[in-house]
């Protein structure tokens, strides 16, 4: 249980292209922080550096304000869950979990007790004598978690631990992980590319893109107040308007049109954005604020709703509607953007 600080990490595998650039973050005692980002953005690389499996070109990892850059992997007192689980196939579930305790030279009695306790928490008591090859994916995942937490690690690292499980099990397991993490109060860094998964279990989320953190915040922050194009797109915003200039305090010029907004006008946004389901679509002019005329280009079924592409003076808009009967291709329509739902993006 500890506080982890990552400071200005930089790494390049080939000394030409930066895989990580200037990565900084702080994980407080007992917190679960997720690193969220698309495939290849550098999540695993970051985690491996924290674990000590990889040396960064620059930057530091601090645990409780001590630089652990020179501490070898096996002395860091961490736990890690790998995407492939990486269980020891020649050892039983019990021995897999006991491994770290044996390395710490605990007495037989203590090992017995601790393993038993952790197997109970992870719901594996009945499987203690099995070998990893005799377990299902979900069970292997739990053994891997048990092996990582049994040593009472200062920091728990998890690299997409749920990605090999089916959708239903994934939801179940993530709840388990969260409750165990909170019960034991383990500082945890959790890597995933699944937005829902990370929102459901994290105290904070660090959204990563091309080896940089785009935004770090609570799940609500990230979801409701994305600050960059990338993050906004990642959490479901689709309509992006490049700001040409600020006309008045709350009015911005976009594509020679004016959009009224409600947010704090000291922001100086580069873009404005709004979710497809937050745009109002109607047949007749209502003389509302932010109302624009447009034409239906096409629509597609998303499951639960229909997505319309509307050509307007603002550009091509994506608008979600619950039913499709109302509008047809080439219909003339009006869209209105609720000024309270238009949010600013800084880059």
């Amino acid at each position: 249980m500890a506080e982890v600080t990552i400071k200005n990490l930089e790494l390049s595998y080939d000394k030409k292209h930066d895989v990580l650039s200037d990565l900084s973050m702080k994980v407080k005692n007992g917190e679960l922080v997720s690193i969220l980002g698309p495939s290849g953005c550098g999540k695993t690389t970051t985690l491996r550096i924290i674990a000590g499996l990889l040396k960064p070109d620059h930057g530091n990892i601090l645990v409780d304000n001590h630089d652990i850059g020179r501490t070898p992997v096996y002395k860091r007192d961490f736990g890690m869950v790998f995407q492939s689980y990486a269980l020891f196939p020649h050892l039983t579930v019990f021995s897999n979990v006991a491994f770290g305790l044996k390395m710490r030279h605990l007495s037989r009695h203590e090992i017995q007790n601790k393993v038993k306790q952790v197997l109970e928490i992870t719901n594996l008591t009945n499987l203690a004598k099995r070998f990893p090859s005799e377990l299902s994916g979900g069970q292997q995942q739990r053994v891997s978690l048990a092996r990582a937490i049994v040593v009472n690690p200062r920091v728990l690292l998890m690299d997409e631990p749920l990605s090999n499980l089916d959708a239903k099990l994934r939801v179940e397991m993530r709840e388990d992980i969260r409750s165990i993490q909170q019960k034991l109060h383990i500082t945890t860094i959790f890597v995933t590319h699944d937005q829902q998964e990370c929102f459901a279990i994290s105290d904070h989320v660090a959204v990563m893109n091309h080896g940089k953190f785009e935004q770090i915040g609570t799940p609500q922050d990230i979801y409701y107040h994305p600050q960059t194009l990338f993050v906004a797109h990642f959490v479901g915003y689709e309509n992006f308007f490049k700001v040409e200039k600020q006309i008045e305090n709350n009015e911005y010029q976009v594509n020679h049109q004016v959009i009224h907004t409600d947010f704090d006008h000291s922001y100086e946004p580069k873009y404005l954005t709004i979710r497809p389901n937050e745009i109002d679509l109607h047949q007749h002019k209502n003389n509302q604020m932010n109302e624009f005329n447009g034409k239906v280009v096409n629509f597609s079924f998303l499951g639960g709703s229909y997505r319309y592409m509307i050509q307007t003076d603002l550009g091509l808009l994506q608008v979600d509607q619950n039913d499709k009967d109302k509008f047809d291709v080439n219909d003339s329509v009006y869209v209105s953007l609720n000024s309270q739902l238009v949010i600013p993006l800084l880059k």
Partner: protein
Amino acid sequence: MHSHKVLNVIGTVAILFLVFPLIFIIITSFGTGSTIEFPIKGFTFNWYLHILDQPDMISGLETSLLVSFIASAFGLLIGIPAVYAMFRGGIHHTAWFQMLFLSPTFLPEVVIGFSLYQGLIITLHWPMMISLIVGYFLLGFPFVIRLVGAGLNMMDPHMEEAAWISGCSRLKGFFKIVLPNIKSSIAAAFIFSFINSFNSIPVTLFLSGPGFNMLPTSILNYMQENYDPTISAISVILMLITTLIMMLINHFMGLNRLLK
């Protein structure tokens, strides 16, 4: 279904070709005639007893077993760390090293035998025993590189990392995690390098000589003077020894896992 039948036919033919010569040898070793003949006219164990009267063969068998064993053991001792360093040590030019280690496979054994003879025995005056160990080592080493390398390749590298993170040093991890997971590859490597060196006639011919008798040379010597079923009998003994080694290693190291 159809491909199953084809496979069965091919399998049967292959087994016939492999097994018939063996059966032939086994049967002829019990023949009563004074030369190797088939079918046999009577049944006797005498040729097996006759082996005991051939001190050259007995001592040849002993030294052959000993030298092959030592050479194969050295092969593992040097080969396993070499492969590990190649695959996990972050060493550059791995392909180049691999080529170097596998190179004995590409050389005719006669060339290996002759060059060792010229280099070690003629030039350096090394004893034959040592030269033979070096020669057999070279014959077996490529098997170690290939089989142990394959075993390491099949192992999830994260497994070892998981051990380190659990508090296990690199060296300890090698013994506790890596070795147990490649032991069937090691067993296979040992068997292949042992049998390959034990059976090598060219290298043996070059590096043994008067006063230092190896099994292949003593069998050849015996055959030149008497072509009788003793040859068959010693062949059967060799088959039994090979089978026994395989069974022992399988029992202790689980070779069947490798073949699955």
